């Protein structure tokens, strides 16, 4: 579905006039309708990568907040210029930070919050609030408001319409604007808060926006791994719903591994796992740890110890020992591997190897390889005597906006139980 613009050019208003303007909009201009009885979506749209690329002249504007191929190509080229490793993912926050050191003072129109992915607008959000922090920390607060009717007029009337509110300014100004934002979030409708930026920034803003039972959506590949995992655990422990796009992107890996063990004749092998090896791109371990934790939780393993492991120049890995339900040990290793063309997000999966050894029958070795990567490291190591099951895991090809649209289309007011079980264990796995 193509991205859509708002129905009208947003109106710039002084922040204090926003509530009364919206009141007038609904009582007069939209036929006294209540608007779509759907949800509020609040987005923290950092877009630091895009802003920095524009500033240093490596990207033409406007700034939209959408991660398209043009932005990604510019990011990959910039990584080389900044002397970062080839395997630096475009969305790695350290890339935006490194580009920030490059010279340049270019500007472009900032349209964040005004481009709405069609898949999201199809769900008729009642209110879309975008907080767009600027590179200029001292930038004063600007507010923009517009009506938004994503559906054709047939049969829906004002009940399909919503409004868009954009708050743009330095992080400090946005922090102060939270008093303005909170009353705009209806308590009668579900509220999703999408933190579309690193989890390291503005934690107090996130905590305020995602308070109570608001449904927080984050990406645990963006930010310090410890902080990311702790955030997941804190929300889960507090009973506050959280969704993780990094976890959702593991969908095809979970499915591929489950498929290997669908034939009942292979089920018993799951009770005899002795070794689990994961390879991930770059140094961000979160995604791999979430996958390992999911598997451990599903098979009832108990974590005994975890420790750093020296890699072969690609960074530090993670080792751990688990105890199976029958008391036997499972050895776990997760290693960073360099790649020529990294995926968009840090820490993408490259490969998985699972070795199962029961007292009867030949051992089973399962190898899953990313569609775009090689598994030579995992394929080596003398497995000729084992039954080999090798699968290629298809690459997910959905943007963040599409993933978000999928969450909005049938979301829950609670955390997915699989994530709720895996995240705490993943946090413990991180040395």
């Amino acid at each position, binding site marked *: 579905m193509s991205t859509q613009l708002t129905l009208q050019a947003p109106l710039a208003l002084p922040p204090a006039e926003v509530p009364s303007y919206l009141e007038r909009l609904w009582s007069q201009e939209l036929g006294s309708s209540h608007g779509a009885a*759907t949800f509020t979506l609040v987005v923290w749209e950092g877009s630091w990568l895009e802003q920095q690329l524009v500033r240093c002249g490596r990207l033409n504007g406007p700034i939209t907040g959408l991660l398209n191929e043009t932005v990604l190509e510019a990011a990959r080229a910039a990584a080389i210029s900044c002397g970062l490793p080839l395997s630096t993912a475009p969305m790695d926050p350290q890339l935006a930070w490194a580009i920030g050191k490059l010279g340049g003072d270019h500007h472009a129109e900032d349209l964040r919050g005004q481009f709405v992915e069609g898949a999201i607008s199809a769900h008729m959000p009642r209110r879309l609030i975008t907080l767009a922090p600027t590179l200029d920390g001292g930038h004063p607060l600007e507010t923009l408001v517009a009506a938004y009717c994503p559906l054709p007029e047939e049969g829906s009337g004002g009940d399909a319409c919503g409004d868009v509110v954009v708050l743009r300014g330095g992080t400090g100004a946005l922090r102060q604007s939270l008093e303005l934002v909170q009353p705009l979030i209806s308590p009668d409708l579900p509220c999703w808060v999408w933190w579309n930026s690193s989890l390291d920034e503005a934690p107090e803003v996130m905590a305020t926006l995602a308070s109570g039972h608001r449904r927080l959506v984050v990406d645990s590949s963006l930010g310090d791994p410890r902080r990311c995992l702790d955030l997941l655990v804190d929300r889960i422990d507090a009973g506050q719903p959280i969704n993780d796009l990094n976890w959702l992107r593991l969908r095809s890996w979970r499915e591929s591994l*489950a498929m290997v063990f669908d034939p009942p004749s292979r089920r018993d092998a799951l009770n005899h796992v002795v070794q689990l090896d994961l390879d991930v791109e770059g140094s961000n371990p979160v995604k791999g740890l979430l996958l390992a934790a999911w598997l451990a939780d599903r098979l009832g393993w108990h974590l005994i110890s975890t420790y750093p492991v020296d890699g072969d120049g690609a960074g530090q890995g993670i080792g751990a020992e688990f105890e199976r339900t029958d008391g036997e040990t499972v050895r776990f290793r997760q290693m960073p591997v360099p790649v020529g063309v990294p995926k968009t997000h840090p820490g993408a999966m490259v490969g998985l190897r699972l070795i199962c050894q029961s007292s009867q029958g030949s051992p089973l070795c399962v190898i899953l390889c990313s569609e775009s990567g090689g598994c030579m490291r995992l394929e080596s190591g003398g497995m000729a005597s084992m039954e080999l099951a090798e699968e290629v895991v298809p690459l997910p090809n959905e943007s963040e906006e599409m993933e978000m649209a999928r969450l909005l289309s*049938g979301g829950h007011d609670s955390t997915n139980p699989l994530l709720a079980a895996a995240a705490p264990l993943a946090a413990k796995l991180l040395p």
Partner: protein
Amino acid sequence: MGSVLTNPLRVGLRQERVIPPQCLVIFGASGDLTHRKLIPALFELFRQRRLPSEFAVLGCARRPWSDEEFRQKMAEAMASEVAEHRMAWEQFAAGLFYEPVDLQDPPTVVRLGQRLDMLDRQRATRGNRTFYLSVSPNFYGSGCRALAAAGLLSDPARSRVVIEKPFGRDYGSAQELNRVVQASAQENQIFRIDHYLGKETVQNILVLRFANTIFEPIWNRNYISSVQITAAETVGVEERAGYYESSGALRDMVQNHLTQMLALTTMEAPGRFDPESMRNEKAKVLQAARLANEDEPWKCCVRGQYGPGGSSTRPIAGYRQEPGVNPESTTETYVAMKLFINNWRWQGVPFYLRTGKRLPKRLSEVVLTFREAPVHLFDAASGAPTPNQLILRIQPDEGAEFKFEVKAPGSGMRSRPVDMAFSYDDSFGEPSDEGYVRLLADAMLGDPTLYTRSDEVEAAWRLYTPLLELIEDAPNQLPVYPYEARTWGPGAADSLLAEDGLAWRRP
């Protein structure tokens, strides 16, 4: 499918499409189907986390129940599931509501609209509504009219109506009902159920045919000599005598389930896998289907009725002895017939359909028998070479089997038949959703692929019209032959194939 241990990695992992927020309105909510099938299916979807948090079920019927009474009655009907999943049930039941509605009484339908608006705001269901008509077939038309008159079907993107079978009693009534329903809503808002389409194995007919290269080139008159489609039940009429007496096997099973299996087996490949393309092809092939002898339809159809059977220690009552059945009843509990499909792909290939109650086994299958080799080079160990057969087992022991000849061990070159088998249990070991779970999910998703379209329904009725008219006007020409319960039907059904030098497959 058989019961097997669940794959622990598969738990919670269903790659299913997400059902959007909506209100499911069930008319006839005080009836049997709701507490036996619909609410259990919805509860299963809820436990699988396939229902969003923004979801509501509004039960409607004439009885003056409250929300709480409705929840209580559903809990009582599902006592064992509720006891096993108490917490989940309490969360699920919080989304169950009730509104007394009489579809024949417009003010109550207007009140329904107001209640739905309130629920929309209360549960944030986004104005999405699915109306499920679990009512007597006599009220399908008037029910749709009432909903349309109250403006509840005016938004084609956010409202749909699900109609149970039977859709009409014959071609004329089906056409009339279609006219009424289509005057109330657009075709893409109308979901006519056929329960067989909800079965994994019925859907597998399509995947087998169109996801593999090897079958399509031989899936035609040049290679296939005949096709048998069987839906056999071991049970009798049970508690459905009231409905069955006026229906019979032809209306109850042949017009819908067997005809859908026929359509999926014989249709052309659609250009793409979208609902309309699929249904276009099904309608086309049904429009080309004909009774083998339309001028003398009694020559290509056999009707039967089960009589007493079983053993002295476990006797089985005959149909006429069943509670609620007229002791002089001439309703058929068994039908066998021969059809042709007059198109390039199937011209001249006989299709034999049979269905019956109180047969020896419960099974549904599609059996494609291939033409014999043009020259028999080898002696067959069994005397004569067995034709190749592809057997699609719909239920039980879901899967497929291919029979072909191989060399028998030993000196000499004799052939004997062997089976190459695929079993869902052995390959996946994962119990698939019970039919209503899948059908409800698809209706709430607005995916009509597993539902029948108006032209398909009318084509299916038109196909059997000569038989229905004969039964109505000259039943003596299509007599009901008795058969002993737990046998494979009347001998006359065997003669139907014997005339062509064939025999029914004995599964």
